């Protein structure tokens, strides 16, 4: 599922000032690509990601996903679109504290009306994959930051999303944990052959992307396309 962005602009009004978070962005991301958005803080990375995920409306421009312009959809259609196609990993995990790890992961499937038995099985499977087999009944408060993000990843990838958005998924983690988390994300992305769009301000983490988008002050400065074939291997070579 490819994503095409045309002349995307997003302006915020703050008082009587206009903040230009995106000043006209064009970009194409192919299906199955791992795309990394790099830039300094405040450069407009999150804004771009949120627009692509349909979490807010652009001031101007088009975002075509599966040849559908999501900027034309209403709230209801967007919600349905997110339910069907999109997974989301947050920097601050955003788990529901009242629910167990298993329930948190099962939540997207619950919204899809998947029967309880099946969604619990699926959730358990993916939690095992992220290394939390023994923690499925823990509440978020009983987990470490790294473990919480593993739950967050499991929740984003459970079921059959076609695109996963991740906004600085390792931003709150130490470097060692960051490496582990990043490895997990890449592994599952490759396994499920889905499109990953990830924001980071850490240059090192961009090594594994097929495409790196450099963004500054709301404009794309450079797009680097890389050979995608050996990404995972290269990653493994370097870490082991």
């Amino acid at each position, binding site marked *: 599922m490819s994503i095409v962005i045309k002349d995307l602009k997003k302006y915020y009004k703050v008082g009587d000032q206009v903040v230009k978070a995106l000043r006209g962005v064009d970009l194409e991301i192919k299906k199955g690509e791992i795309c990394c958005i790099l830039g300094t803080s405040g450069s407009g990375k999150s804004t771009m990601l949120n627009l692509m995920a349909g*979490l*807010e409306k652009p001031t101007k421009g088009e975002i075509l996903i599966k040849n559908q312009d999501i900027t034309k959809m209403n709230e*209801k259609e967007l*919600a349905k679109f997110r339910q069907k196609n*999109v*997974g989301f990993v947050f920097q601050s995990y*955003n788990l*529901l504290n*009242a629910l167990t790890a298993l329930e948190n992961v099962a939540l997207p499937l619950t*919204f899809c009306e998947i029967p309880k038995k099946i969604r619990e099985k699926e959730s358990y499977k993916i939690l095992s994959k992220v290394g939390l087999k023994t923690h499925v009944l823990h509440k978020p408060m009983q987990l470490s930051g790294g473990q919480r993000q593993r739950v967050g990843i499991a929740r984003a990838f459970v079921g059959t999303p076609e695109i996963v958005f991740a906004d600085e998924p390792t931003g709150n983690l130490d470097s060692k944990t960051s490496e582990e988390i990043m490895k997990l994300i890449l592994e599952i992305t490759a396994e499920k052959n889905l499109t990953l769009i990830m924001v980071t301000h850490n240059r090192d983490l961009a090594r594994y992307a097929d495409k790196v988008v450099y963004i500054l002050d709301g404009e794309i400065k450079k797009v680097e396309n890389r050979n995608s074939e050996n990404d995972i291997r290269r990653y493994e070579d370097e870490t082991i």
Partner: protein
Amino acid sequence: MTNRDLMVMGLSNLKRRKMRTFLTVLGVVIGAASIIVMLSLGIGMNRNFMKNMESMGSLNVIDVSPEYQRYEEQSSTTSDKKLLDDEAIEKFKNLEDVDAVMPILDKYVTIKAGRLESSIRLLGIDLEVMEEFDFKVGEGTLPTQLANNEIVFGAHISEQFYDPKSRNGFGNNKVDLMKESLKLFPEMRGNSDQRQRGINIKASGILEPDQGEKDWSAYMDINSLEKIYEDIERKSEDRSRRKEKEDKYQSVKIKVNDIDKVADVSKKINDMGYRAWSLNDMLDGMKKTYAGIQAILGGIGGVSLFVAAIGITNTMVMSIYERTKEIGIMKVIGAELKDIKKLFLFEAAMIGCLGGIVGMVISFLISQIINKVAASFMGGGMGMGIEEISYIPVWLYLSALGFSTFVGVLAGYYPAVKAMKLSVLEAIRTE
């Protein structure tokens, strides 16, 4: 999201905030209970009133009398006057919802028992429909067609006899009508012939007291009574008197098969040109009064439920502020708008429903207490037709439950829409 999952999630949300849920439910409990109890008082009152009315006479009987005519009209329009005759009786019988029709010959007669006599109202009726019109004998039997000149007396007639030759006529002159030999002297129009010889009659029985007009009347077969008067008229010298067109019957009683149809039938009879009257007419006015009282009582209860509704809205709005982030997250990871809305509506409805259920139990207890206390005030046994002053019919329980649930939904509507419309990003950024 399936409704089942939605319910599970809603219930666990309520459970998570036990104290607040409890207090909000408590508000609804008070509201629902006060509505039920207030209305139960009104309903109890109404029931007691109905019972009293029923003891006064049958509510489903219509009394028909001839059209009322002013004196001046009498001579000119006599011929147009609708008469209460056999033709009219047939028409009444053919009306819809009419069970039985009883034409009545209404006469005043003097009954003599030895030295004592009494002037009473003797009504000629159709013996066959007596049971339908609730004639119940306390002693003896109802008169039969076979025996001639049998009379059944009202319960209080025996106390009405006096001795015309004695100075203090009304002494203790109770007559045992069943044993004494009785003579009947018809009272004729104009002067009564003092020399006429009495007609021998026999008491077949005494009616049960019924606190109504039956207590003070006597009844016999209409044909026998008619014959007595025809005989007298034939004998009287005034045979040439112009037989003017007059009502054959003085009144007719009509029994309707359903109390609710009485007004309809009454109207039809009035339209035919007769005068219809029933206890039900009186009841109508009283019913309006009671409806007013009922509305006031219900209103008092309604105010407390209204306050409870504000409580629900408040709780749900608070809940949104508390759960803003949660709502935002749910939206990002795939909740549809209707899921969010339904979730909030369900939680509010549950508060209303729960309050309604507990309110039902509480109001049952309160109603019991009220009745116990009232019973002790009235000196133990309730007796005298006064029954429970608070009465809760099943429909009141059920509609109170339905109503409080509905109030919950209504009160939850605004918060639900508000939650649904929360902007995802703003919601997710709140802490």
